[in-house]
């Protein structure tokens, strides 16, 4: 093997027809005179054939009916951002109502707020509160430490 011999990458790219014209010409000229590189070329050709055989096509089912069935209607697709925005606004509204209008202080009939227990933590009194509603199945439990209020949602 001489210093002018081809490297594997050049041979591979030559077979893939990806060399620039000047480089391609150089490879062709060298192959005419070098048996070793011709052998390398032959080996890579054989590899490529085998790999192509491995990737040969398999019988393909008709995918059209299944895909068409899954596609959204064009109107829905066209206005999907509008629909998504409307849904987001609705969700945000519901969340707002849930978080700020149904609060432990907004107790109605049948709803109660009780102190479950109290304890001294780091010299301060901490109380555990519970709020229950008879309407939706909602229960808040939170801890109070002085003016801090931490809510847990259960």
């Amino acid at each position: 093997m001489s210093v002018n011999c081809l490297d594997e990458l050049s041979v591979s790219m030559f077979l893939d027809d990806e060399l620039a014209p000047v480089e391609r010409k150089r490879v062709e000229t060298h192959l005419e005179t070098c048996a070793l590189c011709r052998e390398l070329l032959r080996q890579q050709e054989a590899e490529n054939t085998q790999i192509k055989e491995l990737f040969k096509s398999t019988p393909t089912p008709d995918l059209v009916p299944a895909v068409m069935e899954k596609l959204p209607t064009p109107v829905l697709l066209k206005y999907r951002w509008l629909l998504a925005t409307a849904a987001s606004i609705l969700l945000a509204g519901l969340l707002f109502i849930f978080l700020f209008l149904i609060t432990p202080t907004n107790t109605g009939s049948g709803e109660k707020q009780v102190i479950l227990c109290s304890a001294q933590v780091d010299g301060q009194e901490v109380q555990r509160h519970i709020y229950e509603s008879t309407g939706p199945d909602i229960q808040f439990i939170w801890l109070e430490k002085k003016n801090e209020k931490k809510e847990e949602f259960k």
Partner: protein
Amino acid sequence: MKNSQIVVLVKECLNGNKDSYSLIIRHFQQNIYNLCFHFLGTPQDAEDAAIEVFTKAYRALKDFNPQYAFSTWLFRIAVNHSIGILRRQKREREYLMAEAANPFSMTEWKSPDTVFFNNSQQKALESVLSSLPVKYRTALMLKYQQDLSYQEISEIMEIPVNTVGSLILRGKKELREALK
């Protein structure tokens, strides 16, 4: 079908003509199915994945840039989707286990030339191929199954074009090493 014809069909789809998409599916279904099949290994997985690829592509049609080839765009979706499935199902781990069961591991060394020419060893080669790192397998598939150019492969895999050749060569070398 030329890319310009596909672009017309895409515009029709975007204007609400859903039926135009069936022509696009018919044109690409074999390529996409085969790509998914060689990634995922079973006809059922390949069919499910191909259907999802076409559905996903339809929903993303407005993002397709008509200045580029539709096939490249669709292949990118298919490759990413298949790799996503592989990752989710951790199939790569299974492929590595399959490699451990490779009959070649107990045979004496043979030159790559001899090995590649022996048709009876096709199954083993298939097993080894499926255990290759995804990037090599993807490059080999796009080149030798889909017959794409290095430029197209670089766009699909989102890698520089000058690394595609070495990725393909590296994939072949990994195959040879695994078959030793």
